[in-house]
């Protein structure tokens, strides 16, 4: 049973990665799971400079999911290179570095400064954060802006470039095509859906930032539909995520057209979720006589 996947030139032991922002920079999970069992991990978004993030409350549970408003709290690129990367480099798994900026230049800068870092499997570009030029509207909500960012990163980077797409758009297929034309080597989706929760006693938002990002099982059907749509819209590989908690959830995404999946919120409930998922996918393939996990990809019969 062959669990390996080749994706945009990246050789993955298996199609299961941990999602950005749900495994920090790897250290904390060391003692709770065997990262070498995974296809890879995607590090939490780093920005050019350190960021404080949003004021608490940053988390609240919702039906079959949760809202978060972390606000990209991160140590910034210098600290990442000096303090986080040396550890990440020692991991026996593929490490994808997720980056974000507030302008096309910031994105490009980060990419060029990450050229020298040996061993980065790929860059994942988080275009879901606000574009300061365009008055705070997110890059990801506009095909042109998304393409500008990805094009600039593609030119500056010497690793495969994965564009991480937002689900909060009218036509995610259009955005996917735009970043493909701009040179993206792969797309990953979905990021969180914009959501909100209110404390009815105090009549205030539960989150310090008023709105937040919805993740977890609740959004799985939305993510799956978008992965299916995008995998038909583009020729580059698609990485699927959104509410994946079990091996069979992952299998749904592979069948819908994802070449790999990312496990996000599930890590919070079970820090060993990714490793258990790899085993579960293997069992599924054996039960249904699938020789190569790659044979599942896009095998949906409609």
């Amino acid at each position, binding site marked *: 049973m062959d669990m390996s996947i080749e994706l945009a030139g990246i050789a993955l032991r298996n199609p299961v990665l941990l999602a950005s922002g749900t495994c920090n920079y790897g250290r*904390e999970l060391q003692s*709770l799971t065997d990262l070498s069992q995974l296809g890879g991990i995607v590090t939490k978004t780093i920005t050019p400079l*350190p960021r404080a*993030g949003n004021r*608490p409350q*940053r988390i609240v549970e919702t039906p079959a999911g949760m809202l*978060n408003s972390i606000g990209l709290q991160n140590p910034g690129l210098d600290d990442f290179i000096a303090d986080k990367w040396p550890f990440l480099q020692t991991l026996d798994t593929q490490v994808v570095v997720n980056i974000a900026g507030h302008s096309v230049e910031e994105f490009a800068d980060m990419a060029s400064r990450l050229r020298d870092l040996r061993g980065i499997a790929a860059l994942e570009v988080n275009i879901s954060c606000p574009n300061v030029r365009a008055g705070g509207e997110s890059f990801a909500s506009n095909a042109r802006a998304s393409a500008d960012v990805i094009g600039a990163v593609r030119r500056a980077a010497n690793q495969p470039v994965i564009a991480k797409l937002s689900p909060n758009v009218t036509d995610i297929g259009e955005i996917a095509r735009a970043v493909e034309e701009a040179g993206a080597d792969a797309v990953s989706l979905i990021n969180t859906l914009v959501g909100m929760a209110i404390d009815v006693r105090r009549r205030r938002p539960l989150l310090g930032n008023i709105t937040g990002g919805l993740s*977890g099982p609740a959004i799985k059907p939305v993510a799956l539909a978008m992965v299916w749509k995008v995998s038909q819209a583009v020729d580059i590989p698609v990485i699927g995520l959104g509410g994946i908690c079990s091996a069979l959830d992952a299998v749904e995404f592979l069948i819908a057209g994802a070449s790999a999946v990312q496990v996000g919120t599930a890590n*919070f409930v079970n820090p060993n979720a990714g490793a258990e998922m790899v085993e579960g996918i293997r069992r599924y393939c054996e039960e249904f006589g699938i020789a190569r996990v790659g044979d599942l990809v896009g095998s949906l019969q409609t």
Partner: protein
Amino acid sequence: MIDEIVEVLTNDEVAEDFFLARLEAPHIAAHAQPGQFVNVEVSADVAPFLRMPLSVCAVHRQISCIDVLYQNMGPKSGQLSRCRVGEQLRCLGPLGKAFSPVPNTKRSVLVGGGIGVPPMIFLGSELVKKGAEVILLVGARSAAKHLGDSFFQVSATRLERATDDGSLGHHGLVTELLLRELATGACAVYTCGPHAMIEAVARACMASDVPCQVSLEEYMACGIGICVGCVVRVENADADNAYADYKRICVDGPVFDAREICWEH
């Protein structure tokens, strides 16, 4: 710290809406220190979805058990309260930084309120074992909301209670009891409870230069530092490093030195 499959040995209502559960958890029982907590998967289903953080209230090393004391106030605690004896749950722990008793202080004053009482019970019993003088101050809205003396037997050399309505002990805030203790002489203060109470305790101690350790709570998803959700604003000298404005309560805490916390707002 491991994700242990624990068995529920007892799970009973011990006061109005308060439940005491004894969990067979060899690893956690062997390593848990006062102030640390566990993150319990109360249901394998998608709702309730996140785990429930619970302070360790007591450890019984000889029988490999820990006790948790919890208030039934919503879906997760409700689900836990319905757990039957013999059921098995995933329980991640011990988590977070423990209290670090201030060296050579004879007198320890512990201030607890609401769901902040359990860690005080654990800390008190460890300090008493070490032969220290332990004054435990417990506040609650009314007598009905107070736990019985039996819960505090081994956890204090002196127990004082306060109620907002005067129905038991001191009529007023538990912090008023604290002021008396601060006035009577040198001591170290440890506290856990509602944020307003903790802040009042911290400010009183800082004002009179008494060492004070606070155990904080914030809404948690992971409990192990990977979501960066459970943060508290801390005093940050380094203006160039905004990243250091917030610390994660689950791994950098829940216990902090009162002077570390940014109390304004």
